């Protein structure tokens, strides 16, 4: 195979992989603290993207726009936990999953009401030009996506692995009773995890809008893809999410480049689902508990 084609597939895989990793991080944060699959995660991404475009087109500079979007989306996430998930904290896990699905409907409806059906796009951050390397292209937005994902990953890694607060969060999921005994407020931790996940979602939304455009109905498909990425790697560890996201991105890029007919999505999904079915607890053998 031509060298430049292989390189292009690699860059494209890296680009998609970072997006899927970033999508998966939101699931990881909520799941590792509360053992809830948050099906509204894709809607947070949509909400973040929509808000950034709205603020940016109103004349607010990019960075404050993103910060504003993150704050608002985090508040939405915290609100969802406080008023919808918290009252159901004693219910079975499945009920909470369905509650988040209900929230997804509500957020989608609100977005449709305020923003309409239109697709919104944004220029690459700070109009970064695309780069050519050995005949392959890296889009201007790609370094921002990879960079931001790396920062979020590093942040979560340090936070969950090396801070008291982070360890407390993990304890909530692993041993709720024990955590309570040593004086950790599980509810406060869960509230925090929802806000954090929503904030991460908003950042992802801002990152992908220049690449894919944003519309009110893009949440559910994003949820499905992010969830798959997280499960493939292993949803209970940051490393698992990174691995899952990268594997997903690479497989999608390679199939799109190598399969001559227009059906690469089927192959990519089949490989992932098949792999997951065989190695059912994810590549890192961490998923599937609880």
């Amino acid at each position, binding site marked *: 195979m*031509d060298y*430049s*084609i292989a390189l*292009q*597939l690699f*860059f*494209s895989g890296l*680009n*998609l992989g970072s*997006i899927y990793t970033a999508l998966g991080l939101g699931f990881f944060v909520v799941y590792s603290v509360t053992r809830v699959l948050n099906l509204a995660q894709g809607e947070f991404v949509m909400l973040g993207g929509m808000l950034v475009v709205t603020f940016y087109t109103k004349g607010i500079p990019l960075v404050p726009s993103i910060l504003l979007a993150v704050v608002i989306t985090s508040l939405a996430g915290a609100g969802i936990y406080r008023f919808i998930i918290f009252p159901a904290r004693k219910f079975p896990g499945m009920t909470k999953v369905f509650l988040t699905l209900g929230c997804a409907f509500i957020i989608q409806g609100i977005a*449709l009401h305020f923003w*309409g*059906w*239109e*697709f919104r*796009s944004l220029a690459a951050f700070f109009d970064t030009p*695309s780069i*050519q390397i050995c005949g*392959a*292209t890296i*889009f*201007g937005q790609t370094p921002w996506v990879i960079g931001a994902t790396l920062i979020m990953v590093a942040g979560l890694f340090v936070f969950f692995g090396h801070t008291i607060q982070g360890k407390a969060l993990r304890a909530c999921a692993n041993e709720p009773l024990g955590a309570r005994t040593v004086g950790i407020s599980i509810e406060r931790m869960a509230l925090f995890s929802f806000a954090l996940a929503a904030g991460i979602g908003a950042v992802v939304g801002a990152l*992908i809008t220049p*690449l*894919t*455009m944003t519309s009110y*109905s*893009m949440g559910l*498909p994003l949820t499905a893809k992010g969830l798959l990425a997280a499960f493939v790697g292993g949803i209970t560890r940051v490393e698992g999410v990174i691995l899952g996201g990268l594997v997903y991105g690479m497989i999608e*890029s*390679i199939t*799109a*480049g190598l399969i001559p*007919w*227009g*059906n690469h*999505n089927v192959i990519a999904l089949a490989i992932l689902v098949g792999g997951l079915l065989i190695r059912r607890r994810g590549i890192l053998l961490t998923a599937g508990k609880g």
Partner: protein
Amino acid sequence: MGKKTIFVMTLAVVSIISGLVSCKATESATSYKIGALVSQTGNYAGLGLQALDGMQFIVDQVNEDGGINGIPMELVLLDVKSEATEVTLAARKLDEVNKVIALAEGTVTQLALSLIPVANELEIPSTGISGTALLDNQLGHWFFRPMGSEVDYAFLLLNHMSQYMGISKYAVLIENSGYGQGGKVFLPQLNPNHNLTIAGEEYFDPGATDLTPQLNKIKNSEAQAILIWGSSPTASMAIKQIREMGISLPILTTPAQASKDMIKSFGEYYELQPSVVSVTTKVDIWDQLPADDPDRESFKNFAESFEEKYGHPPAMWNILGATMMLFFADGLERSIPDPSNITEARAELRDALEATKDLNLISGTYTMSPDDHYGGIENNLVLITYKDGQMVYLP
């Protein structure tokens, strides 16, 4: 019985009963009611809402001029949410509850297609927006398609490539959609007429993020130009990615990319040399037409009065929506059916529509006959390119 129980049961019973009863309200017939099946939500909402504006514009215009023989036209709108099932349901409702005289589906091919069996079963003269000739052998007795099709504008594009660009091999980037499928089927049939061959055929999904793997294959093929065939925003985004990848082949596109929204989002990439060539209607560039063009005056009137009312010049789907209403208005004028006897009125309208002759409907000039329900004889489509955020006519 607890209060909660009573509340829940009342809620359930009331909503089920009123859901059924509310459908039964009937109205008296003092106008020509036309059912508009338009997607206001879902994947194709953008196109649906545009078509609706175009339809409403013509209906208002007809009514301002005193209606049809004194009887006003009226649009009855139902959202079909970009779903085929909803079209079937909505058509039945418009038939029974609203007693419409005709139906117009204003979104995309898949949805128009789902109206065909219902329209023929309910015996309502109908039309739908679809830019593909894939439908033409199954329209039946009651469905009409006064629209251009890919065969017509593909001719323009292919001719431009072989005659003006001197190209013999091109690559085609096709959207995975009903519209894209038309291109997939018809392009290979048309190529030999223009001495063209396809050097690369790639596909993309509406909503895809990164088309570089597909585009890289095109880049490394022998293609001398790229033809983009699709109607979603992703098709326009592809142009951005092609240019960012440093591919400087000429790009040709189908009409959907020539919309104001897309030019606003991706215009700077459209204009990079060699600038993109698109098909669109003459209405878009009526002011650049030669002064002796017979249609110039009618396009000017349409475009100016539309802009006055809606604040922007008519876009492709505005024009297609208007086309459908003009088609019905003409049929109604020639038959003047009695709206109170709906069955007969529908049959009379259908016969009149089938006898349409040399009618200029802005998107083209049409003549229908019993075995030809699409009948475009001359399409008012032209090629344009882009400069300074404006479309420039390519004579």
